[in-house]
């Protein structure tokens, strides 16, 4: 069973502060998505977590091992897939896998070989001839074949086709269900929304929030598109401080906060012809959180 915890991790490169007292926690069986725009500090955070870069202050713990002082022990129980898809071009896929899982207490080479087949990766071809997406898959296979209770994946979906993404999502979900603790950074918010139990938002090295996904989505305003059988005016529609109507005649849209059931109960008496849920997804939450930054 895994557990990852970081407390007040800070990192500065020269004069630039890349991480500012970032704290997160992931329990076993949980998948946490680390999201943020480019340069937010996601990769640096993951590097500090694994001891590839040294944090200036704060501490991180993987299971019972402090990643600063006991970095080696922490890495032994953590499979890692880096964001940079640079590998040793002269090695083939199997040799890369062998090198990657070397040193782990209970690696599973066969798991890796089976995943090669599942991902349709040629085993004997030199990695230098692999495409970007194939290298990404290979890195993921290496992390999974290490057979560790914790997985740290930096941009595992980047460069993958939709089919491969779905397959990776199902793999990660299965891994989490078996008790593994998974932390992954991603720009693919749809994937994060599909498989993560909780999400952490980073901006300029600062943790804006870490919360369960359901809670984040619940807090976001919900949005329903309604078509009525007969034209209605605003006065005919139910009014409440949490309901916000826009539109006219037959077509209206409703924004509301709080549980969907409660809102549906309030409009159930209306002559509804059709109803479409256009509620905010993680992408809308992300946009709302980072809007000032994205617009600059």
């Amino acid at each position, binding site marked *: 069973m895994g557990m990852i915890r970081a407390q007040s991790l800070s990192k500065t490169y020269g004069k630039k502060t890349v991480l500012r007292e970032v704290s997160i926690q992931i329990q076993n069986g949980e998948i946490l998505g680390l999201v943020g725009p480019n340069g937010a500090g996601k990769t640096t955070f993951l*590097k500090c977590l694994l001891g*590839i870069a040294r944090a200036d202050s704060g501490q991180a713990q993987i299971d019972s091992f402090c990643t600063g002082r006991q970095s*080696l022990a922490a*890495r032994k129980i953590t499979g*890692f897939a880096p964001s940079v898809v640079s*590998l040793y071009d002269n090695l083939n896929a199997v040799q890369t896998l*062998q*090198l990657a899982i*070397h040193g782990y207490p209970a690696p599973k080479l066969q798991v890796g070989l089976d995943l090669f087949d599942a991902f349709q990766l040629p085993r004997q071809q030199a990695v230098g001839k692999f495409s970007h997406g194939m290298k990404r898959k290979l890195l993921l296979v290496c992390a999974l074949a290490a057979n560790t209770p914790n997985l740290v994946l930096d941009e595992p979906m980047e460069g993958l086709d939709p089919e491969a993404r779905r397959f990776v999502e199902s793999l990660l979900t299965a891994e989490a269900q078996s008790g593994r603790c998974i932390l992954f950074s991603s720009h693919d918010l749809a994937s994060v929304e599909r498989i993560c139990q909780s999400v952490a938002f980073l901006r300029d090295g600062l943790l804006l929030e870490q919360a369960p996904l359901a809670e984040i989505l619940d807090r976001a305003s919900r949005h329903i598109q309604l078509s009525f059988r007969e034209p209605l005016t605003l006065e005919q529609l139910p009014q409440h401080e949490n309901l916000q109507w826009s539109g006219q005649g037959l077509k209206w849209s409703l924004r509301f906060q709080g549980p969907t059931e409660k809102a549906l109960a309030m409009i159930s008496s209306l002559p509804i012809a059709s109803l479409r849920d256009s509620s905010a997804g993680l992408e809308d939450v992300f946009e709302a959180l980072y809007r000032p930054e994205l617009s600059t």
Partner: protein
Amino acid sequence: MIASHFFRENRMLIYGYFLLMHVTGALSVFFWPELREQIDLIVQLIPLDGVRRFAEAFQTQGYWAYFDAQILFKGGGMVATAVAGLLGSGLIAREADRNTAEFLLSRPISRAQILFRRWLAGCAMLLIPFFSCVIFCWALSPQVGESLQLGRLLASTAHVSLFILAVFQATIWLSAHSTQQLRAGIIVLGFIMLNMAIYLVKHIWHYSIFNIIDLDVLLPLADRGAYPWKETTTLAAASLVFYFFSWRAFSRRDF
């Protein structure tokens, strides 16, 4: 795994080095009878003082001096140190250069282990061909009517090996600070060439690092078995110091 991977990455360089050392070594041995005939004339024709000192040693000390100069000084001191520069410069800097450091360092192997295993592999890759070449040329020597005492020859080879290792270790130290293998390699090869240039200039030749492994050091060992402990100790200490600083730089470095 780490050591074998390092070997695999550098095997073409090492095969080339092995071949070059043995072929040029054998050619040098078989050239000796011709040189011996004309050595008096050659000494008069050589314009550079640094090189003439070697030829004069061939005149007075014979095959020992020739063997030391060709196989140990030229083969070991120049070819092997150049290979040490190429090999050492890539030991750490190449990982940063091609962005594989993240992949390598996230494995459950300590940086000290990575450095040590690669260093060990590098030592083997540098010294096995060198010792092999020396023994090969020693075995060929009776073909040109010469024989050398193997024990003293191996002692001389061990001394030059320490020189090669010191250069190798200094290069690794540079590599631990560098993000580009090419830059580290150029610095080391430039340093070696500069020292060779200094070595060939009258009055300042003794400021060159090649002074530590030239005939003034190797011939007393061949003649009297006088092992150059002072120079050997200096080289061993330099290697240790550079190893320590390499380890420190590597273990503190962010990738």
